[in-house]
């Protein structure tokens, strides 16, 4: 493939022993704190669109389209999509943080060269960045949860349990974005990531319509998308949970995140410790 010949493409890199894969919590926390400190200076401007985003979707889809589609699975359409918007807000936040923001820190500010010349190793750096991305995404998700609750679109107190699950789902989105960032040679390639992965996932993860009327393969494809699992969880909690559904979807997110963690660690080591 042509992109593999680009000078910035370093590839996945050699296998790394397991002990070099496990992050040191205190050093990952140091990386997390740097990002949190910078966010604490900018959050006012950064959070405003997050209030507007779900508002716009609810307006267009819930109150617009919703007048034609009254109920899905016995619940009003607005209530059907609202909890999914918590999940998708977390997805968008994770996607932006681990693509453009990480790319900027790594390649423009060149902060990672400095970080890695301290006791921090690649696995600590990746873990700290992922933890931050998930935390930030959860803030966004909680903001959206607040907005939909104000609109009266949350019918169960179980919804208060959403944040830890949003953290879990966001870690999964973030690992995927981070992997992409550590593998691409050029910033232009992000348009592929968003157009071919994030946007389709947003549209086809059961957020806007259920799969019951669609062919079986659509359901199969959706099963491979992390957003599908987080939407199942958030919708379950907002309308009254089904225990085993929440457990199985959470296990899926945790397993996939853990397995994928090796990709950015190996690729970043290859890129920065050449």
């Amino acid at each position, binding site marked *: 493939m042509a992109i593999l010949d680009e000078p910035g493409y370093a590839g996945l890199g050699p296998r790394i022993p397991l002990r070099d894969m496990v992050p040191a919590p205190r050093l990952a926390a140091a990386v997390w704190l740097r990002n949190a*400190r910078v966010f604490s200076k900018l959050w006012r401007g950064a959070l405003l669109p997050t209030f507007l985003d779900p508002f716009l979707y609810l307006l267009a889809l819930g109150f617009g389209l919703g007048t034609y589609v009254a109920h899905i699975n016995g619940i009003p359409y607005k209530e059907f999509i609202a909890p999914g918007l918590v999940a998708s807000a977390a997805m968008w936040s994770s996607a932006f943080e681990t693509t453009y923001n990480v790319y900027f820190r790594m390649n423009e500010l060149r902060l990672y060269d*400095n970080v890695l010349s301290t006791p921090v*190793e690649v696995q600590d750096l990746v873990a700290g960045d992922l933890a931050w991305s998930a935390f930030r995404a959860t803030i966004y998700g909680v903001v959206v949860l607040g907005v939909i609750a104000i609109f009266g679109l949350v019918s169960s107190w179980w919804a208060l349990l959403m944040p830890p699950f949003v953290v879990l789902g966001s870690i999964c989105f973030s690992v995927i974005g981070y992997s992409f960032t550590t593998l691409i040679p050029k910033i232009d390639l992000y348009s592929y990531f968003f157009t071919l992965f994030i946007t389709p996932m947003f549209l086809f993860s059961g957020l806007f319509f259920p799969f019951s009327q669609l062919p079986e393969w659509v359901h199969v494809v959706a099963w491979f998308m992390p957003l599908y699992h987080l939407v199942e969880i958030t919708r379950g909690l907002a309308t009254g949970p089904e225990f085993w559904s929440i457990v199985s979807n959470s296990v899926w997110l945790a397993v996939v995140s853990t397995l994928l963690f090796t990709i950015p660690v190996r690729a970043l080591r290859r890129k920065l410790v*050449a």
Partner: protein
Amino acid sequence: MTEAVSARGLTKRFGERTAVAGIDFGVEPGICFGFLGPNGAGKTTTMKMIYGLATIDDGELTVLGMDAMRERRRIKSRLGVVPQETNLDADLTVRENLLQQARYFGIDPAKAEERAGELLEFSLLGDRGDERIHGLSGGMKRRLLISRALMGDPELVVLDEPTTGLDPQARLAVWGALDRLRRRGVTLLLTTHYMEEAERLCDRLVIMDEGRIVTDGRPADLVRGHVGREVLELKLDEGCDADRLVASLDGRIQGHDLSERTLMLYADDAEAVLEELDHAVYPTESALVRRATLEDVFLRMTGRSLRE
């Protein structure tokens, strides 16, 4: 006493190209050790292998008594690095840059505040702590990079071209900071292509070229050994035959170099050589007697042609 850094057959390849071709060197603790060489000589790669940002293909490298490949984290906790590129965190203030570095070293916050205050004074940035990085001059950024490297209280500081691109005053300020460090007993390892800097700061140095060490020693000894005390720099007239001129001085000079029409003659007493020269046979436009410097050694060892 164990050496602060020691390398045996240290080798690094990038694909086909050999960046560092099996070099040996040893750095005693507490000294300032320099790496000189033209661009692409392998200096930066050698530094990166020492501070863990480049893998080692062959040979042995011991840093502070530890194996550089296997004990990277422990080595880095006792090391400070001043990179060639200015990679300060533009989203943080001057002081926050230092405090953040302390977190990477696991230093507790109260101690970090105290050290950051001291180091801002040390680098003459005492009143700039709350400013953005953006507002600092090149020299200030460089001094802040040095302070950042010192947050972890290192025993060894690696500096990759610490004064490149600075004006003379800013360079003096950096030299001052490095002098103070060395007096505290910190081992310094630096690369530079400013000969004056190397002569002034380094106790020992190596000259690298094309991945190899071509010579090493104390700056004064290198000058004495390779070029002698003085240089007679002659600008030759068109009709002057350089080869016959050099031959006529056989035994009275230690060596010579010719570049275009400029002839360098190395001798312990260049004034005497100038007096003996038969100006009628060998016409010159100008003649200059000067003290021999490390620059003469450098150019003798690595040649006069451009390296790019």
